């Protein structure tokens, strides 16, 4: 699938989800979360947030960035799983975790759709 289409899907689902989240409507969040889930599944996290390469002698900052991308991947999968299970509490908790990570992801040269999409999902 064209990466631009995936990016657009992510942004659309993200914007809707963020709006509902701010409004505090849990049901709507879950419904819109499902749409985000579909977009993420369509995009395939494997492709959308690839594991970056780790230099042979990485600096402490590179190691931290690398680990945070890996953690963000697991968060994304967990977010999808929680939304699928209608586990609103986990979704909310993960959104907070992910929003903290997303700020730092900007410094990681991912060059992928999800680095943009993730920020959009979180509305930041």
């Amino acid at each position, binding site marked *: 699938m064209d990466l631009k289409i995936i990016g657009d899907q992510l942004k659309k689902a993200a914007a809707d989800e963020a709006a509902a989240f701010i409004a505090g409507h849990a049901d709507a969040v879950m419904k819109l979360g499902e749409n985000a889930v579909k977009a993420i*599944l369509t995009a395939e996290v494997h492709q959308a947030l690839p594991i970056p390469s*780790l230099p042979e002698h990485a*600096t402490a900052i590179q*190691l931290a960035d690398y680990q*945070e991308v890996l953690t963000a991947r*697991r968060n994304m*999968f*967990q977010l999808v799983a929680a939304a*699928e*299970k209608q586990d609103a509490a986990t979704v909310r908790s993960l959104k907070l975790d992910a929003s903290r990570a997303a700020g730092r992801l900007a410094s990681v040269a991912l060059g992928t759709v999800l680095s943009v999409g993730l920020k959009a999902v979180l509305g930041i």
Partner: protein
Amino acid sequence: MARTGSMLLAGLGAWLVLLGCGEKVSKEQLEQLGALAGAAKERAVSFGALAPSMDAKDPAAADAMRRYVTSHAESLARKAKAMADLYEVAQGKKPGKAALAQLADDIATSTAETKGWEQAYPLLKVSDEFALTHLAGLKRDAIQTEGLLKILTEIMKRQEDKKDGP
């Protein structure tokens, strides 16, 4: 890398079809999953307990290494939850595609985390014994998860062959 990716997707596909068909995993596979889930939880708990004391050897790297340790601990906790969820799925309580996608992806993530830890632990104030045990555990998890996916892929293939048979 591409081969690993294809294998993961093939494994994931098998899982999805397996559960989509309403087939249940065998007692042996359930036990394997239970063991994996237990090991993941144990690793997350033991790392989490030591994480606050894992300071950087070089004070100049303190902030970055704190970020690394915190994030690694969080990742291990996520993995433990994912495995527990999957175990629940396998018992037929709540099938979900997402939990299976997590399992397939976990192999690649665990392998990558192993590489990270290999480079990170020499920079941290942590005993060699713990560091090497943790390293071995991360490696073993990735191998066992991959093994489980292969078994389930094979089971699925046999079921498909049976369906297509005379």
